[in-house]
């Protein structure tokens, strides 16, 4: 038996340590550890409730908009504003948040993932990009590179183009959000910004460029990837999937609202509705003291570095006591059951072209495919939302901060289900809890010894040599964000 520590796992957000035990060429045990604790939930206690949507964004600079959205939904709930957000307010929040998804998914595939599969020596004759080769070379042996030299060169060119495209996606965020990272305009009650007609046009034409890139490069490149690595639909599988849904839609003329991505769980091939009361966090294997298992709204865990038997700063979220994978694969799989027609049709098209089925989505190839399907769907919907904006309509409703209140904001971040819980007492934050997508995915073992999804995905994998290649590819397929996993 060989014990291998991979730390730092690079090309993700934040500080993740993965430890694997390899026996007979198979990973027999995996441990996922978050290596940084800052304590933003503690830092929020005692502050003014409105500070939450600014401070929680600083949890993560890659997906801050997901946190400003979750915090604002959470405060909308606590302030009784949930049904009162003006149509423009909802649409603008969705456009800002959607734009950040596009940046995230492009970044994840080209810049965080592809260097695992590309051969930098293909760049040696390329005057423009040769300097990148050294920086992107793995510095160790990489197995199982399957792209031809020509495909390598094409994908490296797209790597460079994608740097520009994700920047433009961030410009979309800033057009309505003020700036990014850390948008300004998403607040309880709606948004602070009423875009001019010129802004809407600037958004439309930038979005068109980003959408063309998604249609002409990103989606075809992902299809090429899943064709070359079709066996990766069997690699890193998990199974149970969960989504909080997200992108609340303004009420239409029939009074129907709902969410773009439906909420639900997929357990043993069956979709069930989601009950947020069934979510718990467990600290058995995490460096905290307190009650072992609690609902986030009651949680009182105190950091305890060096706690015996623990190995991570990440807690272990569970739904009815079970671990669940969250993220694009969950959203697409649940969307195939409960989503609207455009979502089902894009998802079915993606699966058909990839030669895969719904049950294959929770896998290395399935996660990349789901992300690309989601980017296509969101870009399409964003064009529709933009058309629906009423340039003269209100963007926010006024409100007062109550002395007491409780709220919960459940939404989706690029990496999966994101929940914020707040309790207000004497006009101040008394309690704040965040359960982020990577908290679910990179969670450690719980009180009954069940491994978290990334640990499950690694265990049982057949590897070559020390497993660095396979482990890196499996872990990155989840798009881990450690600053989110441990706030």
């Amino acid at each position, binding site marked *: 038996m060989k014990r291998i520590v991979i730390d*730092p796992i690079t*090309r993700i957000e934040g*500080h993740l340590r993965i430890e694997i035990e390899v026996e007979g060429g198979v990973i027999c045990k995996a441990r996922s550890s978050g290596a940084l604790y*800052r304590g933003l939930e503690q830092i929020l206690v005692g502050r003014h409730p409105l500070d939450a949507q600014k401070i929680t964004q600083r949890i993560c600079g890659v997906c801050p908009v997901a946190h400003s959205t979750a915090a604002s939904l959470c405060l909308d709930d606590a302030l009784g504003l949930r049904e009162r957000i003006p149509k423009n307010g909802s649409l603008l929040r969705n456009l800002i948040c959607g734009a950040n998804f596009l940046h995230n998914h492009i970044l994840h595939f080209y810049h965080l993932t592809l260097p695992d599969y590309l051969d930098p020596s293909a760049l040696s004759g390329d005057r423009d990009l040769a300097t990148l080769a050294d920086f992107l070379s*793995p510095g160790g042996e990489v197995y199982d590179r399957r792209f031809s030299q020509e495909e390598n060169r094409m994908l490296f060119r797209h790597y460079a183009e994608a740097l520009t495209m*994700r920047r433009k996606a961030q410009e979309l*965020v800033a057009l*309505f959000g003020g700036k990014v*990272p850390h948008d300004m305009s998403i607040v309880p009650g709606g948004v602070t910004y009423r875009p001019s007609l010129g802004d809407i046009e600037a958004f439309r034409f930038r979005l068109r460029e980003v959408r063309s890139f998604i249609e002409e490069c990103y989606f075809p490149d992902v299809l090429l990837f899943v064709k070359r690595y079709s066996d990766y639909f069997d690699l890193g599988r998990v199974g149970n999937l969960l989504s909080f849904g997200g992108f609340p839609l303004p009420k239409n003329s029939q009074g129907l609202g709902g969410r773009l991505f439906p909420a639900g769980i997929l357990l043993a091939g069956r979709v069930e509705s989601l009950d947020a009361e069934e979510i718990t966090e467990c600290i058995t294997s995490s460096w905290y003291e307190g009650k072992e298992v609690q609902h986030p709204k009651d949680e009182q865990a105190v950091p305890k570095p060096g706690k015996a038997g623990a190995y991570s700063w990440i807690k272990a979220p569970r739904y009815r006591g079970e671990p669940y994978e969250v993220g694009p694969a969950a959203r697409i799989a649940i969307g195939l059951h409960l989503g609207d027609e455009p979502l089902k049709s894009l998802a079915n098209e993606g699966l058909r072209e990839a030669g895969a089925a719904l049950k294959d989505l929770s896998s290395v190839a399935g996660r990349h495919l789901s992300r690309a399907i989601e980017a296509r769907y969101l870009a399409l919907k964003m064009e529709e939302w933009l058309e629906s904006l009423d340039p003269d309509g209100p963007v926010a409703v006024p409100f007062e901060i109550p002395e007491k209140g409780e709220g919960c904001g459940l939404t989706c971040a690029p990496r999966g289900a994101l929940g914020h819980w707040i309790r207000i007492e004497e006009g101040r934050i008394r309690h704040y809890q965040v359960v982020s997508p990577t908290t679910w995915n990179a969670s450690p073992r719980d009180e009954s010894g069940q491994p978290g999804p990334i640990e499950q995905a690694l265990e049982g994998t057949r590897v070559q040599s020390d497993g660095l290649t396979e482990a890196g590819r499996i872990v990155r397929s989840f798009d881990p964000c450690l600053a989110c996993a441990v706030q």
Partner: protein
Amino acid sequence: MTKSRTRSVIWFQGAGCTGCSISLMNSEYPDIQNLLLDELVPGTGLAFRFHATLMGPTGRPALEVLERIPEAQAGEYFLVVEGAIPTAEDGRFGMVGEVPMAERVRALAQKAVAVVALGTCAAYGGIPAGTPNPSGCLGTGAFFRKEGIEVPVVNVPGCPPHPRWFVETMVHLLLFGLPRPEELDEVGRLKSVYQGLIHENCPRRADFDVGRFASAFGQPGCLYELGCKGPYTDSHCPFQRWNGGVNWCIGAGHPCIGCCEPEFPDGMSPFYRKFTAEEAKASYRRNR
């Protein structure tokens, strides 16, 4: 134009959120491709050797880069620190490669030609050092003073910093070398990059002067009553604007939250509390 000479950069991430890295990737001219591939000033470019978000190597091979460069290029490389440094509990709140971040930064800083503390966390502690500072986070300057490490530090704060503030600071270092004391303000930033209160250059200044104030989000007028920290904050945001110049905080109808000042977040929070005249005046006493 490919690089003829390069200065190595080790980009170390401590207790942060990667927002500073993402912000740099949002740079327009030069863009991130230029920064990675081209000369930044005639004859010299930056060579990013270690940047955990983008580099190829992972695990042991990545640590080898982090450990090799300080030996091979002692006194020649720039250390960019993103994020604060957790010091409580012997640094066990933040580890990289099974070694506390504090120890890594100490080793990397001692052989660097200069340290660029990028972002408010690295410069002054920032968000993770907000009360009650659970992990004992310090900014790089404070950490070096505590540890007795003598290395020049230039602060490039902002939560996140505008990419131009990093680029302009690096251009200064490459062209003119280490800043002279009179080129830095009282809180370690290049004056050429930061000086000038937002309030002095704000397009809504005329509203302030005639007393036209917004009283709720989304209204026109000066945002002073909504807690704008522009009268306290030195930054070029009003004329540089953000993300390719498409917008900025006050442009989006949101008060400035003073994110590039050492008092962020505690001294700026509640973010929507109106600043007193005394608090605003305090900023005029500083640096002037």
